[in-house]
């Protein structure tokens, strides 16, 4: 059990995090490894992966000091690079073409790396800061390992990790999906928001409101919004809560999920991981290893009687048996905040209270919660009612005849055809679009490098083997990707269809012509 079984199921996906500033002396190379998956690979193998990456980074930096290596495309593997923090690199190695689904869109993989890192930072602060706190690396390793394993446990399908592949080309990780609502509802929401933000008296709280898995409102900065939104959808939304309950029962997520989780930090076995992770036992913080909070642990959130979601992940106060309130770090203000999610039917409210504003810990938080219930209950009820009334269901944003992805890069917002509808597309169509997106990604990053600030307009329509049209349009920071399987006649027809779509659903943003 444990990682041994898991690693065989990962199809050779490797994921490592290393620090270029560490282990520069002969014999101390292991020091630079902060995380490696699968953990039971021999050190020699781990070091060779990291060594290759490091070499390439060093080499490419000669030509491009700002943006070093992004990817290595080898015959059988792709190495995706992401510099999470200065000199702290994340590299993901995926095997190509072993089976038919192993066709990746590199940018999507990089977004996975980015996401897990951002989430980590939200809960624990930066990797660098933790390394500075404990130069031995034990602290960061003991945090990274369970965290990333918990994160990866969301990917498995059946017995293997299902990383974003070409089939996910109509999705955009690292964006937020918004609920569209009427003016009246929007005003109600805004009124609720002002109540939420003033819940803790003078200190300013932040809030985020979700309806189902869609964002309704946020007062956080865009980056913080993405992180918290991602976390909420993963663990807090009504969907996540109900699936979380089941995740231990192996029903929804398959048995592997539990393998990943149970195989993580707490029970890691084998000499290899022992050496890395237990080496920290000698460090001052080593004793904490079993008390590392697993922020992404599955099935640990549940709804309390008062409507607030609680979890014992952050520990339980022995005296009062009250669960400790989680805290998160805001990127923008670098402030620690208490995380208080509240749920009413499909509405999830997340209140962030500055830790510095609460003097008496849990008691103070309880007081603010009380305030929230007193001041906002009625409004919450009203907002939920309004939103439910206007809610078009899971397929609300389906546009028949179109399979689309709309990304507003400025606002980090995306909207796409519902997944159930995307699966009806032929594999060829998806492959074509995935390929097209790869090209567009490249073009975008090139344009960004060439002249920052100036936006590029782009329009590409290609015809796939199955006569479907794969279309990409970029204008004014907005991106539209589309697969039209039934518009096979002519390019004119396809372009007309895009025009119509643009006029009806994008306020004509893509019909400048």
């Amino acid at each position, binding site marked *: 059990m444990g990682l041994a079984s898991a690693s065989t199921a990962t199809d050779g996906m490797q994921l490592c995090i290393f620090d270029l500033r560490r282990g520069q002396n002969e014999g101390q190379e292991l020091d630079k490894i902060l995380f490696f998956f699968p953990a039971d690979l021999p050190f020699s193998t781990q070091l060779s992966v990291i060594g290759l990456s490091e070499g390439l980074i060093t080499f490419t930096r000669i030509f491009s000091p700002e943006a070093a290596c992004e990817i290595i495309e080898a015959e059988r593997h792709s190495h995706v690079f992401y510099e999470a923090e200065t000199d702290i690199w994340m590299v993901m190695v995926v095997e190509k073409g072993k089976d038919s689904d192993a066709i990746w869109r590199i940018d999507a993989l990089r977004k996975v790396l980015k996401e897990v890192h951002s989430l980590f930072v939200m809960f624990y602060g930066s990797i660098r800061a933790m390394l500075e706190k404990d130069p031995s690396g034990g602290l960061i390793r003991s945090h990274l390992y369970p965290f990333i394993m918990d994160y990866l446990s969301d990917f498995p399908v059946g017995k293997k990790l299902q990383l974003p592949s070409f089939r996910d080309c109509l999705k955009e990780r690292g964006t937020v999906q918004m609920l569209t609502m009427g003016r009246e509802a929007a005003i109600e929401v805004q009124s609720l928001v*002002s109540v939420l933000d003033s819940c803790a008296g003078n200190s*300013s709280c932040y809030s985020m409101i979700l309806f189902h898995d869609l964002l309704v409102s946020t007062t956080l900065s865009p980056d913080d919004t993405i992180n918290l939104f991602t976390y909420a959808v993963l663990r807090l939304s009504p969907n996540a809560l109900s699936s979380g309950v089941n995740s231990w029962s192996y029903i929804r997520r398959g048995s592997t999920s539990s393998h990943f989780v149970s195989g993580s930090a707490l029970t890691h076995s084998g000499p290899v991981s022992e050496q890395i992770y237990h080496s920290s036992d000698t460090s001052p913080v080593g004793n904490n290893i079993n008390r590392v909070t697993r922020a992404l642990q599955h099935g640990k959130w549940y709804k309390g009687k008062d409507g607030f979601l609680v979890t014992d992940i952050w520990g339980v106060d022995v005296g009062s048996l009250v669960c400790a309130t989680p805290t998160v770090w805001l990127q923008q203000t670098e402030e620690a905040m208490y995380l208080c999610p509240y749920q009413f039917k499909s509405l999830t409210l997340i209140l962030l209270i500055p830790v510095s504003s609460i003097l008496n810990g849990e008691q103070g938080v309880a007081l603010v919660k009380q305030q929230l219930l007193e001041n906002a209950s009625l409004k919450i009820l009203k907002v939920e009612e309004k939103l439910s009334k206007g809610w078009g269901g899971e397929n609300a944003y389906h546009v028949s005849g179109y399979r689309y992805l709309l990304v507003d890069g400025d606002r980090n917002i995306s909207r796409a055809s519902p997944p159930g509808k995307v699966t009806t597309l032929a594999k060829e169509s998806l492959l074509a679009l995935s390929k097209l997106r790869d090209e567009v990604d490249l073009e975008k990053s090139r344009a960004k490098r060439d002249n920052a600030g100036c936006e590029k307009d782009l329009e590409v329509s290609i015809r796939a083997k199955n006569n479907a049209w794969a279309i990409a349009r970029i204008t004014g920071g907005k991106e539209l990707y589309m697969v039209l399987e039934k518009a096979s006649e002519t390019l004119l027809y396809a372009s007309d269809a895009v025009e119509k779509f643009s006029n009806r659903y994008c306020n004509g943003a893509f019909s400048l012509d």
Partner: protein
Amino acid sequence: MSGKASSSSQPSIGLSGSGALSHIYIQYPPLRCSIPESRGLHYDDGTKLLIPSTSNQIFSWKTVPFNPLATSTSDSIPEGPILSIRFSLDTKLIAIQRSSSEIQFWIRETSEAFSHRCRSDSENILGFFWTDCPLCDFVVVKNSGLDLFAYDSVAKSLDLVEMRKLNVCWYVYTHESRLVLLASGMQCRTFTGFQLSSAGIVRLPKFDMAMAKPEANSKPVLAAEDVYIVTVYGRIYCLQVDRVAMLLHSYRFYRDAVVQQGSLPIYSRKIAVSVVDNVLLVHQIDAKVVILYDIFADSRAPISAPLPLQSRGFPRSYSSSSRSSGKDGECSEVNNKIDHEGIIYGDNWTFIVPDLICDAIAASSSETPSVLEFLQRRKLEAIKAKQLCLGIARTVILERRPVSMVSKAIDVLVSSYSLSLKTGSYFKGIKTESTSSGVAKTSVARSSTDVSTSRIDGTSIRHESTAGVDSEYPSRASTFSASESEENASSAPLRTDSRDLQLGGGKVDRVNLTGAHSSGPTDNPVFVNISEQQDSELTSPAISPDEMYKFVFAAVEEEMVGDPSYLVSIIVEFLCSTNMEKIKVHPNLYVLAIQLLARNERYAELESFVTNKILEPSKEVALQLLESGRQNIQTRKLGLEMLRQLSLHHDYVSLLVQDGRYNEALRYARKYQVTTVRPALFLQAACSSNNSQHLAAVLRFFSDFIPDFRTTSDFTTYYGILNEMNTSVAATSF
């Protein structure tokens, strides 16, 4: 005897007030009437005349409109005792009670007199009054019942129309309510009521008033001084003092029922009750304070803390009018002269339903929304109420009161405005506002003794009272002002007689209950007709969104320091209210919201405000977005986007060019045929890109797009530049 009858009231709503520790003020100077050898002072609430008398002369002062310098008219009458005096409603006749069995009538025009006597010696006249009931003109209340008479002006006599037999101990009547309550029984607590309205005579069901017993076997007797008829918001109530229980019971009259409404505590052995602008004032005489109640709201809580009555103006001398029986016991209303000016609630004060106006001082009340609600129902001085409301709204925002509270306050204002829109009163209000300086003055100057007579009979038509008053008091026509009509219209919808209807035809959405038979007491209040919205029709304190912006938000914004997000929340609450009532908001408010959000650098939220159309698109909004977008490119994009969506092609194209996106601008210009943007701008932009191909393309575009472009100077200039560019390119390449 020198009588100085008082007069009181009024207000001045300014928050600055004199010492300001009072809600109720008596107007100074009072009306002084100094008559040598005056024997008695009477007040006739039907005609609102103050009547001092000597043994053979009657003086009368008009108290409405109140003028401290008013002069009296006098009538010489046959000498004799005067127990009580009432002028007929057209003031042509004077009825003088000479004894407990005789009333003398004096015809002023001809100086003739005739008398009316009781038929049997056992009958005693308790009182009498003139009425505008179509069946009769004159009513005599005797211990054996009511006699209703019609006046025959030809024969100069009274004809008995109807008799209502019953035992009467004493009675109370006010002209305002047209209601006479007859007390009977051992304890005088069983009442029979008649309303002698223009719609006819309505007999109310008999009812008993509650009286606590001090001890097992004693039965206290209810006195006439302890029963008050008050008219509030067109509803008629009776208030009864229970001296044992120390409670003031209230009863509301319906056509077929009398319903006890609850009780107010009293804190004084002696109290008096009056109504000013629909606010109930309970004078706790021993304690020398007034407590204000707004019995429209169901709460039994006072509007504000009890505070003493004060006089406005020169505070040391004035007097008050008094109600009731005094020494002679028989006459119903007498004004006692007050010798000691400056003493508030002097021993010899009694109250004559004085018309004081109250000055609700916002600061003394903690419940802002209810204060606003209260103020929005004011109509006596709508302008002042309105200014007060605006002031309160500003204050609560500046004081950063809790959003929920401010929100409630705003709700009150917005729904009141919406209501006034529906009834059309808002616009009328505007009209009268133009004459407002006059309004303030004249309406302020009302006498305390002006018992506004409101006959509430369900058939009020705007202006009719004006007509009625005019025909009754031709002399007043000249002094008649906008405010007068407001007042009368609101507080006294008299007359439904056809002759009075000339000016009718205001609003018709009133509750017309006359003649309608009610099924239950509660859903069909008989006496009520004028709903408040009608009352507010002529002057409305309602505040429009534009005014809210101008006098509240914009004003507050200038003074506000610190975090503007509070004001944003308030604006959102305001939008919430206006959206609920479907009222349009001025784009300037949106502009303000954008400025505030941008100042806070809450650009992400600003975006959601715009995309969710919380801030409705308009050119003003778009331009502000562009302006605020100088600091934030996303916001600028929103502004551009809005221009495009509003089809403001010219602005959109100009801005694109300004941003150097001239290619896009050209495409757009071609698509929407925008020809108003000068080609030179495009050419300039293309030229500064230093790209000869682009410049050539733009030149080409205009040559195709605009006929005759080749002949313009622009073409020549830039064609020259293009050639230069090309030759220099050619030169360098060779």
